[in-house]
């Protein structure tokens, strides 16, 4: 008798609480604010221009450059082998397979870093993996690789080595027979991430 009484009260109370709770949907893939903050603080989502330049020179298939600027800008100038996904259509059906995939590392870039950072945050929050940004964007690319700054005479040896390397890179990207933006390099088909689906169940 006692248990029935207590149980009834408890269940009705819990039921009332449940009834006023808002219905929420949890997605196991998406990150919440704290998780996103942690990822930002780790800072390992930035690719330096030197690293990217090296990768391009060595024809490293690991990276896929993604140009977030409008098509006209892309056609005027873009980094070799990059794919043009204008920022506004980032999450359109055509492009989602390219940003939500597991095969290669996407490197977002734009003129500065604003667009790239925004794209990174949005895709990160959705739980997409393998997205990075190019440090400083095209502006930094020009300032570092295409027009490398000669180090002051008081700078250390390392600065000079870096300068020499960058001179070489500049030659690679702008010299005669340089790899141009309209390179014939095919953009590889994306390998989509396995979607989480409902578990099989029931008496079957």
């Amino acid at each position, binding site marked *: 008798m006692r248990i029935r009484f207590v149980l009834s009260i408890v269940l009705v109370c819990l039921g009332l609480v449940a009834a006023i709770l808002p219905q929420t949907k949890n997605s196991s893939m998406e990150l919440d604010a704290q998780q996103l903050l942690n990822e930002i603080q780790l800072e390992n989502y930035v690719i330096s221009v030197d690293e990217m330049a090296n990768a391009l020179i060595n024809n490293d298939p690991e990276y896929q450059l993604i140009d977030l600027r409008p098509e006209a800008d892309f056609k005027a100038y873009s980094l070799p082998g990059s794919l043009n996904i204008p920022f506004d259509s980032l999450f359109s059906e055509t492009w989602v397979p390219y940003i939500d995939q597991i095969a290669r590392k996407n490197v977002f870039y734009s003129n500065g870093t604003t667009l790239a950072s925004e794209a990174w945050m949005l895709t990160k929050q959705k739980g997409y993996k393998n997205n990075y940004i190019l440090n400083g964007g095209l502006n930094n690319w020009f300032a570092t690789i295409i027009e490398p700054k000669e180090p002051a005479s008081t700078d250390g040896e390392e600065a000079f080595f870096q300068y020499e390397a960058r001179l070489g890179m500049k030659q690679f990207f702008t010299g005669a027979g340089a790899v141009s933006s309209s390179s014939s390099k095919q953009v590889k088909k994306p390998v989509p991430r396995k979607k*989480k689906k409902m578990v099989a169940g029931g008496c079957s």
Partner: protein
Amino acid sequence: MGPIIPLFEISEEINLLIAFLIGLGFGFALEQAGFSSSRKLAGMFYGYDITVLKVFFTAAITAMLGLLFMNYLGMIDMSIVYVNDYFMSSAIIGGIIMGAGFIIGGFCPGTSVCAAAIGKIDAMYFIGGSLIGILLFGQTYPLWEKLHNAQHLGSLKLSDSIGVSDGILGLLVIAAAVVMFWVGEMAERRFKREDINNEI
């Protein structure tokens, strides 16, 4: 976040081990409740023993509230949890046939296994009969195939189909269950059968 095994892509071997452990708990709880006795189970339908009602609804409501609260606390991704696929005709007709089997045989598959485990011979025959019934279904499947696949409405939730939130439905189910507990208790006193209760 749960469910753990699908989301963390844990091996199938561990999944099977967990299945066994869950079954262990399941069987233990069933037998402790007295579901290893066909006469106790049948008592539900004659009023002298409403244990089935109490156990069934308490269990379903406990799990239901658990899921609701876990969902609210972000502890589980309900889009991955299995929601039964609804085929209207076969659900109803299958249910009717099972209901007949229940009142004739005095068991359902889960309780029959539990009862057989403690030595109940009628349960063992029930299991044998079940296997025959399943075999029969498979052998004559072409006759039932159309019915079996008719009116496929997908993984529909009751709350969606009657247009209330999950929480409100939960409250309604709890309210119904509480009423049934009290009414049932009165019925049990009215239809009391000491002779049977002393035997089972």
